[in-house]
């Protein structure tokens, strides 16, 4: 554990980056989730197996997440859209932390709040000119670190630049929805 910085195992991180650089095949990952209807508008996803580093892998345990509707559901969980907020904050935060670790900057606290605006007339089909997704997303970071203010700004900007979820939200992604037959 001696090489951990901000809780990030640096040797392991640099080792993986070196291996991905040498062999692009190892860097081909595939993530997956299974989803099952529970009742009403609620469903539950489980996330367990993934592929990467040239082999099939498993998380330490099977993780489950329930989503529901805030007014028409029965309180099984937050809305699917809110999971996106969690994914975005968690992803940029991970980038901030690894970026700080790589530069040996000690972090004391990294907190953020995410808010997203949505006009639900879009999803309800009331007005075809209104988009269905968020019209605007804002992530606000509050960070206490052993470095100057400009370095914190740079960590956040770089964590955002290298965030997979930020990229998926901010840029178009091809999405296929098909039927199992």
């Amino acid at each position, binding site marked *: 554990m001696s090489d951990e910085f901000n809780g990030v195992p640096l040797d392991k991180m640099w080792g993986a980056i070196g291996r991905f650089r040498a062999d692009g095949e190892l860097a081909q990952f595939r993530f997956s989730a299974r989803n099952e209807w529970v009742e009403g508008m609620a469903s539950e996803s489980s996330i367990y197996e993934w592929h990467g580093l040239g082999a099939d892998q498993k998380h330490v345990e099977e993780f489950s997440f329930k989503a529901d509707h805030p007014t028409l559901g029965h309180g099984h969980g937050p809305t699917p859209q809110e999971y996106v907020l969690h994914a975005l904050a968690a992803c940029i935060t991970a980038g901030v932390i690894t970026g700080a670790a790589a530069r040996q900057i000690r972090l004391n606290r990294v907190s953020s709040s995410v808010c997203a605006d949505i006009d639900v007339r879009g999803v309800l089909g009331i007005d075809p000119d209104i988009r269905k997704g968020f*019209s*605007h*997303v804002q992530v606000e970071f509050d960070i206490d670190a052993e470095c100057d203010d*400009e370095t914190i*700004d*740079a960590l956040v*900007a*770089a964590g*955002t*630049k290298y965030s997979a979820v*930020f*990229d998926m*939200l*901010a*840029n*178009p992604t091809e999405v296929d929805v098909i039927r199992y037959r």
Partner: protein
Amino acid sequence: MIIGGGHSGLAMSKRLADRGIDHVVLERGQAGESWRSQRWDSFTLLTPNWQTKLPGGDYEGDDPDGFMTGPEVTDFIVDYGRKIAAPIEEHTAVESVRASNGGYEVVTSAGPWHCDTVVLASGANNLPLRPECADAVPDGIVGVNPLDYRRPTDLPDGGVMVVGAAATGIQLAEELQLSGRPVTLSLGEHVRMPRVYRGRDIQHWMEAIGRLDERYDEVEELRKARKVASPQLIGTAERRTLDLNRLTDIGVQLRGRLGTIRDGVALFSGGLRNHCALADQKLGRLLDDIDRWIGGQGLDGEVGAPHRYEPTRVEKSAPLMLDLTKGEIRSIVWATGFQPDLSWLDLPVFDTGGRIRHDGGVVDAPGVYLLGGSFLRRRRSSFIHGAPADSEDLAEHLAGYLAGHATR
């Protein structure tokens, strides 16, 4: 055999002549051709005249702080070729280069040549690059690239989308907007730079702090460094700064990076603010480095006071879509970079991405060298002033290769 009679090829010719190495420079047109025939009317160099240097042929005119136009660069190169008496074969296009008898056979429009070594100096910017989504532009919209574009009146009246915000993109965006064509500028990562800082051209400080001499084998992340776009600069007599805020002031609409075009609708990235923040921060770090250097040299009293620039203004919710079928946009300028054309190079030296494999210009084929190109050996490599040091290094290597390679 040197292929290409531009600044790089001629600089190499001088280096080889100095070493008594017999050589020929092949040029498809005339020396310095592309600066005359493949630049827009208002084009000027990004670098001031004092920085326009070639081995044994520095700028000697009376306007060291000025910026050459395209034809002036051609004249400068032609004069240089005469001055060093370069053995240049003009109007000789190379058709193929292949390995032959321990050397190379170069087939040209004027017949074949055989040589022991080949220097590829045909330029890094021969072919304009376009994103894949360019194919999805609706019919009826005029598309141009910076090599063909000459002046605003080449484009139809009406809106223009300029894609890319390196030096070319912002310069063309400004002149098109001022011509009365409303411009939408789509931009991703970019390099923001003032023309003059603390009373001196930014290039003066870049030279002073050694930024331009950073070497390819010292820089972190070379692949990334080679992909960095040209800085947002313009060379004018009044030495003015052209940045995104100036473009916003004259009415240019800033949009995020062009992600794709779907059903005739351009989709822009929502990351515009972050891209601008990254560029502002990077500029801040550069100015910090310059201020530190000035302080370290004890020059603080002799130059202007340190200051910082207004952050790039980005409108609150820049639209993410632009319907190209509505007639608002009549033309698109693809200022999205260039790549070299080495299609005639019949050697197994290309990687799977089609890039030539080389170590600081020493190509992965014995006796073959490459000049020009982004960060070939140094940060300055892609500029004219990159040629002196790069040609010296590679000529030295080439001479060593010839010495070890018993003359047949």
